[in-house]
């Protein structure tokens, strides 16, 4: 890895774009990329349950800063438009975003990245909270991704009484179809997923001989990357980002900033 030095040129483009998501329906997405001809690996970011918010824009730009084509689609697009927290409340009160549309929107976003002349042809997926669950789900339901990161995704292990019309199948039941290496970052004090839930997923991954790497952080709960909240745990967050960039570099190729 070639670390950043202060004499390097650096530039980024970040903007809202439209792209075809689930069933070819047009949705909006926040897209950030390093300036330059590439080729760059890509990452699709799945926003958390609290919405398509400022934090996810920051995360998207962070990936671009590290040399990735980064895109965060608005998976709440079909529910309308308002402030991110009002949209989150609307989706929550409507029974949640359907798994089928999430898989279609994330797959569409990856295909969009791969279609760009800047792409190196490899795309990873990253999500936190509900987005962690969905990152695992989409890595099982499609063959579009080269690497997946599940950060504290709750309800991957979903007992029958917790299944809903929007979430009709527990993602763990799709484990045999996982199509790429998986990195998992979890907190020991999290109540969903609990360490026991994580162990159950790990057992299933072992059963099917999948390539995975899980870290369980002591002293951390749910959402330990979220620096604006009380859940933030700096040591776990710093280590988690480092692990993630190392993982993506291994499976997606050298990011652009190092050129």
């Amino acid at each position: 890895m070639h670390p950043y030095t202060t004499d390097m040129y650096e530039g980024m483009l970040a903007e809202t774009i439209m792209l075809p998501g689930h069933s070819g329906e047009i949705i909006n997405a926040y897209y950030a990329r390093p300036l330059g001809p590439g080729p760059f690996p890509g990452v699709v970011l799945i926003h958390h349950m609290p919405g398509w918010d400022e934090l996810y824009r920051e995360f998207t730009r962070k990936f671009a800063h590290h040399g990735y084509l980064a895109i965060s689609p608005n998976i709440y697009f079909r529910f309308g438009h308002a402030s991110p927290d009002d949209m989150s409340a609307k989706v929550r009160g409507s029974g949640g975003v359907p798994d089928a549309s999430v898989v279609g929107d994330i797959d569409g976003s990856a295909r969009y990245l791969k279609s760009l002349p800047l792409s190196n042809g490899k795309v990873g997926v990253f999500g936190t909270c509900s987005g962690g669950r969905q990152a695992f789900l989409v890595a099982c339901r499609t063959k579009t991704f080269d690497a997946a990161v599940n950060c504290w995704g709750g309800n991957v292990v979903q007992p029958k009484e917790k299944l809903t019309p929007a979430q009709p199948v527990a993602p763990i039941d799709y484990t045999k179809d996982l199509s790429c290496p998986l990195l998992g970052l979890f907190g020991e004090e999290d109540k969903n997923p609990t360490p026991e839930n994580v162990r159950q997923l790990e057992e299933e991954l072992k059963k099917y001989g999948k390539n995975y790497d899980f870290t369980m952080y002591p002293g951390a709960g749910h959402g330990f990357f979220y620096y604006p909240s009380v859940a933030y745990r700096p040591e776990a967050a710093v280590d988690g980002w480092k692990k993630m960039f190392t993982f993506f570099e291994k499976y997606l190729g050298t990011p652009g900033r190092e050129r």
Partner: protein
Amino acid sequence: MCTGIVETAEVSGSGKGPEGWFKLEQVNVSYDHPVDAAFEHALNIDFVNPKEGPGARVAVELNPNSARKLVEAILTALARGEK
């Protein structure tokens, strides 16, 4: 925690949001992430009118003890008023 726990009820009344007063049609009560309150999880109450869009919302985020106090206060006020 990312629970997805939500209970919904039809309600009738008015609420005051950023655009002024509006008719309430529904209340969504969830036990999940707050947006603003400094807790890892909270009892969130959203009074909404889906016909007027996602912005027609009066929101509160309470810690569980505060939510219980609210329930008691509501029941006490109702009992006194409906004697």
